[in-house]
């Protein structure tokens, strides 16, 4: 498996685990899925722009080669893990 593909899968899979360990309950929260849908929309705009304008250029040897429009599939896993991670830390910091 290509490096970016492997890293993206590991990070995305770590989010539900982290959510359980820190008891932040995001995966069981309906609002989290509404959040993901909203972020997905804006992600298409920003990530789509960055990739279609070749502001960020992906090495074909390092990812699956599958793209949604101009966005590599792995970027969706990267995005999910980043926003999931950020919300887990945020929720944990609020509930201390």
């Amino acid at each position, binding site marked *: 498996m290509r490096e970016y593909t492997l890293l993206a899968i590991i990070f995305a899979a770590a989010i539900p685990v982290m959510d359980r360990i820190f008891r932040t309950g995001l995966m069981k929260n309906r*609002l989290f899925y509404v959040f993901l849908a909203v972020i997905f929309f804006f992600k298409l705009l*920003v990530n789509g722009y960055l990739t279609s*304008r070749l502001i960020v*250029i*992906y090495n074909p040897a390092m990812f699956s080669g599958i793209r949604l429009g101009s966005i590599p599939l792995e970027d969706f896993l990267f995005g999910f893990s980043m926003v999931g*991670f*950020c919300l887990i830390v945020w929720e944990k*910091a609020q509930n201390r």
Partner: protein
Amino acid sequence: MSEYMAVLLISLSLPLLLSFWPPLKFYRRFSAFTAAIGATLLVFGGWDVLAAARGHWSFRQEAVRPFRFLGLPLEEILFFVVIPFCCLFTWETLKYLERKFRKA
């Protein structure tokens, strides 16, 4: 201004402006902001440093300023501050809207 910087400023503009909207009380949560954005910057910025060094992706020279830190343009580093902020803003706005609709 670089093209990438313009993308970041446009992304940030509306969430930043609306975060001063009183019901969200965003300005009161400085320590939680520092924790969430700082941790995201470290972990995912760290991934980015590694990925850029391993050649997973690169940046078009004309779209970013020449400044580099650990191989990343300033714009790419700011991405890990701007986007988490936009996410926290979106999340708190959705929580606020849910509370409001439940009351109504």
